[in-house]
Structures are given as structure tokens and as C-alpha cells.
């Protein structure tokens, strides 16, 4: 499922990114790679706050919906 559907507080594993290559690379640099644990720790009107590798990352809804987890 897409990251947008993950309830607040839950931890999932990243399986796929369906966006463009340069954004994919940037997300990898920030720690969002296949097989990584990702937790939704905040929800705002703009998007989600994620915890990944101990760092809080904010991303907008459109981007969050491109990240596939299970």
C-alpha cells in the first residue's frame, strides 16, 4: 500500500518508489531505501512526518503516495 494509507504511529517496510529518478536518488540519500523501516510520526495539512534511520523527514502528500510500503 502507499505510505499515505499508513495510520499514524505505525511502522512499515519500504518496498518501492514510483516517482522520478532524481527524487528517488534524493530519498535514498535521506535514507528511504527498499527494505528500510519507516514510521509515520506526524500528520499535517501539508503531508506526513516520517521517522527513518532516527531522522524526522517531512514530505508532501503527493510524494508520500508514491512511496509503497508493506
Amino acid at each position, binding site marked *: 500500500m502507499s505510505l499515505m494509507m499508513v495510520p499514524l504511529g505505525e*511502522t512499515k517496510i519500504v518496498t518501492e518508489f514510483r*516517482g522520478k*529518478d*532524481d*527524487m*528517488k*536518488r*534524493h*530519498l*535514498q*540519500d*535521506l*535514507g528511504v*531505501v*527498499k*527494505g*528500510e523501516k519507516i*514510521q509515520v*510520526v*506526524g*500528520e*499535517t*495539512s*501539508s*503531508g506526513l*512526518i516520517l*521517522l527513518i*534511520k*532516527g*531522522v*524526522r*523527514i*517531512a*514530505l*508532501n502528500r*503527493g*510524494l508520500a503516495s508514491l512511496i509503497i510500503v508493506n
Partner: protein
Amino acid sequence: MDYVIALAGNPNSGKTTLFNELTGSKQHVGNWPGVTVDKKEGVYKKDKNIKILDLPGTYSLSPYSAEEIIARDYIVKNKPDVVINIVDGTNIERNLYLTLQIAETKIPMVVAMNMMDEVESQGDKIDCEKLKNILGVPVIPIVARNGKGLDKLMAEAVKVAKDKPLGKKLEVFDENISNAVNAISELLIESNNDSSSVKAISTEAQWKAIKLVENDEIVSSTLSDNKRAAVEKIVREAEKNADGDTEAKIADLRYQFITKTVNTAVKKSKKGYVETKSDKIDKILTNRFLALPIFAIIMYLMFAITFSENFLLIEGLPSPGVWLAGLAEGLWGSFADVVDGLIANASPVVYSLIMDGVIEGLGAIIGFIPLVWVLYLLISFLEDCGYMARIAFVMDRIFRRFGLSGRSFIPLLMGFGCGVPAVMATRTLDSEKDRTITTIITAFMPCGAKLPIFAMFVSTFFAGNNKTLVTYSLYMLSIVVAIVVSLILNKFVYKSATSNFVMELPRYRVPTIKSIAIHGWEKVKGFAVKAGTVIFISTILIWLLSNFNINSFNGVNAANNEDGVIMAEMDDSFLASVGNAVAPVFKPLGFGEWRPTVGVATGWIAKEMVVVTLAQLYDDDVSPEYLEGYFSQYNQEELEELGFEDGQYDEEAAFDIYTEGILWEGEDENALSTMKDDIKTKAAAYSYMVFNLLCMPCFAAVGATKRELKSWKLTGAAVGTQMLTAYIVAFVVYTVGSLIA
């Protein structure tokens, strides 16, 4: 022997703090990703032969934003003697990702394990010896903020710079990737057997090969067509064995290596998610419903502290910004009096140059340097504590509707202070489209230098109206115009989707006073320097052009004037001739006369010059004769009330009392009569303010624009857009305004 040491690390890893500690320099340290938007140079304070460079923060050597490209280019092309890689110990997994990539370049490296105090207080342990053995480079624990471990770090860095040890070969990649990298690097070396040493070629080829397997477009574009085809063949082959994506595979392998490393060398007291204080604050500040109201209150407070004349809604209480501005103006006034006394007997030309040119010119801008400073102190506070990153995120939803990312908010906000740092801040934006559009619309913001224009015109022409409301309407107009222009450019010029928003949210920190003060000063410095140089020179130039004409130099003036003065009347000057030639262009906007025209042009030197110029060009309106006539209507008691000592009319005090008391309050109906001959109606006055607000910014900001957009063509297009927008909006304002009135 001289060494060059480059500091590289993730944003927020403490790089700039380390740089300041090492160089003793007063660089600003922010809690906002992207504080170092350009590389900064310093000298090690304990050894002047060591040069230290602070590179922009970067997450990897595959650059994503413009500032990251600066960091990569420097490391790869300029090859510093040693790179100090700063790693945030509290965030070691993500930070080591860059460490591995720097190691791939084989540039000598020392790892500075920063924030060791916070690591300890969390109850975690980092074994730097073990890390050193795994990574094959020195790993030194430090606390950049209090200087702990820095001597050892520098000693190690110098040793590495001297010895240039060959880094250890790290077993990061699997067989498939390693084979592809080796095959490509052999391919690159083959045709490259020129004179430089084989070793150097092979290290560089190795690094390039890794980047090529990662599909790096920048490296790929340097290859010949033949070679690119050969490389692509190898990469495609490797992709078959890597689930179709070598780039993701490499990232994955790096992180696997890091996880193994961290498991060996780092002991964490707590596993998994622990709600920190930062998270609790975020629950409120980024809350779906509270975020915007809280943000609005903070913005209101920021502007009130800076600009409010009735601070905290108390009638007549100046805000800190306004109070400081008054203080500065007072001091400048006393200084002017002293100078006046000193040169009272000088020749008329010299006296006029100093008093009318320099003192009056600089005096007009002295008053708002404190305003800009206070505004930037507050912006710095918001940046340093970490709130700015949240505002950008919260604003993203709104900005997205106008085709911009929330990150554009910061440059625009800074535009309220000064356009130059604002334009430079666009470098942290991800896409070129966002950078270009934000740069263009930043110029529409009512920067500190435009405020005197509003103050002068609003108090002169709108004295009977609600002055705050009129000024406020200009602020609103600038924002509306910025939105509309952004929408138009998005729709008709770029036609591309808005780039996504992704940003690290740093932990909230209480900023130190020192850091905020440095930050505020850093930003206001450019502004003050501009005032001291560009404006100084241009005031003299304007004085020259407005007081002389051709007859000054062929003896005609000297012969005609009784006392042999060669200066000309202003409406007969060089400036008047040029202004008269251009003025008709502005007829449709309501101010097609030479003096307002000249005002617009000098505004491009610096916006504050508009007021300075008009004050110089219309000085008949506040001449001693006029003032004496005006004050003669008052009796002694009234004069005392107005501020004259003992109710005695005093020529020297009259000017200040008139401009600050009478003129600004709009009590003299016949005030500025010559100016009102040129700008006749309120509609024309408003149109003049609008044109100056929106048209091309000052040359300093245009220069910054050129630096960011990297092309004269784009810069020209940006300025063209601004001029066209200003003309259209001012025209509409004047036409509609004239119809209503």
C-alpha cells in the same frame, strides 16, 4: 607547507559551528538545512598556513540541489588536501552514507564524530576505534559547540594531509556491482594514457565508474558517444542482476554496510521510536488546525516588533525596531550639526556637496538599517530554533496551489528585509523552475529599502486617510502580484508539475544569543556595506548631475551669477535634461515628469535612493524661506507646543520639526507644492509607490539574481518580467484610481 582542509557533512551536522570554532570567524550557524549556501573560506586560528573551507551541507555526492553541486564539485575537482567529514553522532546511520561516498573518491579524509555530548546524554556509545578500523580513516570524537576534541582533530587532519594515506578498500558492493565498476573503470583508463600518473587516473576512473553505474548524468555527459554506449552496455548487463536498478542496489548496499558497521561500533541504549521533546512541540506547531493560526501570530509579532509605531497596541509606544531607528536618526542629526558647524565657512560648492549631497543622502537610509537589523534578528531566531523548517512544510500546501514549493517561503520572507540575501537563499530550492520563479517574485517584496518611499508618500498624500491601511494595502498588493505572476509563469512558461516537498526536520534547539547576533549581522552587513559604498557614490553623482549643467563648465553660470557660483538651478541641470527625455514613458502612469522619473532610476542604484533623490530634487519645498513663512501663522504658545524651545522660532530646529511633526502628520495642506505639481493626485502617488515596489530591484539584487540564474538571458527575462509587471499594475492602479476619484 600550506594545506587546504574542506569541511563536508550533512545539513545540520554542525559544520558551520565547527568552522567558526576552528577559524574564530563569525559565520552564522542556523538550524535550517542550507545555511551555508556558498562555500566559505577561513584560516585555522592556531596555524595561519592552514586554509579551511566550509562547504554547503550535502546528503550525498550525487547532487540534488544547486548548493549540493557546489560541495561535490569542490571535493571532486579541486581535491582538497584533506576532507574533514563531520558526522552527527546522534544520527550516525544516515550521516555515514556521505562518509562512504567521500571514501570512494579516495581523497584523504578524517571523520569528526560530532555531538558526542548528546550521544552520551542519550545513553548511547560510539566506539571510534572500531569505526576507524572498519572505515580505514581516523575517527575523532568532538563536540563542535564547546571546542572539545578539536585540537586532536586538527592534528590528525594535518597528519593525513601530509602522509596522504591510500584509503582502505571498503567491501561495500556485491560481486555484480564490483565487476561492473571494474569493467567501466578499465574502459575509462584505456584511452586516457597521457602523462599524469597512473595511480591518479585509476582512482578517478574508479570513482567515475561508480557514479556511472549509479546513472549519474553529470559524469555521463563528459564521455564521448562511443564510450557512453560501451558504458551503458555494461550498466544494462549489471542491471539484469540487480532487479533492474543498479542505482537503488548501490544505495541499498551502502546502507547494508553502514548497518553492519553501526551494529559493531555503536551501542544504543534505546531501540525504536521514542517520543522526543521535539516531537511534542511538533504536535502543536504543525498541528492540522493550529499550525496556520500560530504561524500568523508569530508573523504578526515579528512585524510588530520591527515596524510598529504603536507597539503592543499602546498608542505612541515605539517598537524596538522603530525606537532604534529613531535613535540612529537622532545621532545622525547631531553628527550633521557638528559637520555643519565645521564647514560653515567652506566654499558654497563644497558646503553643498557635503550637506546636500553626502549628509542628507546617507541620512535618509541611516534610519532603516536598524529596522532591517531587527527584522533579521527575528528571522534568525526562527531559523536557528528550527521553526523555519516547519513553516516551510506548513506553507507547502498553500504555496503548492500557486505552483511553488513551501521552501520558497523563506526567500520571500527574507525579501521583506533585503532582496540580496533573499535571492541567495533561493539556492536551497530543488528545481530550477522554483528557483527562477522565486527569484523573480522576491523582487516584488517590500524590502526595507522600499519602506521610506511608502513613509514619504503615504504621509504626504494620504494624511487624511488611515495611513496604516494604505501601507498595508501595498504589502498585500505585493503578495497578490507575486502569486499572480507565479501562477502565470507556471501556466504559460514552465507548464511543469510542482516539485515535491521533502525536507529533514532538525531538532528544536534554543539558539544562543551569539549565534543570532552573528546571523543578524551577517545579513545586514551586505546592506550596510551597500549603504557605505554604492549609495555614497551615487548620492555624490546625483548631487553633481542635479546641481550642474554644461554652463557650469564654460563659464556662463559664473558670469551670470552675482557671486560667481558655477552651480545651476536644478530644473536646468543635466539630470533634468535626461529626466525630461524619458518622462513621457510614465505619462500613462500619472507621474510623467522629470523629477519622479529620475527618482525611479536612482531607485535602481538602491531603492532608498528614491526618497533621497526626491528630497534633493524638491528641496525648494522645505527651504528656510518656506519654513519661516509656514511657521509665521503660529503664536509663541503654539510654537512651543510644536517643539520650539521657549516658543522662539529657530531656523535650525524648523526643518526637523516640519518634516517629522508637520509633514508626516499631513498638517500642512500646501506641503511639497512643487512635488504635488508633478504628482497631482492620490492615484498618481499610489501608482508611483506601486511602480517602485514592483519594478526592477536595485543593482545589488540584480547582481545576485545573475549569480543564481547563471545566465544573462534569464536575468534579462527576469528583469523584463518585473518591469512589465510594474508598468501594467501601476497603469491599472492609476487608471482605476483616477476613475474612482
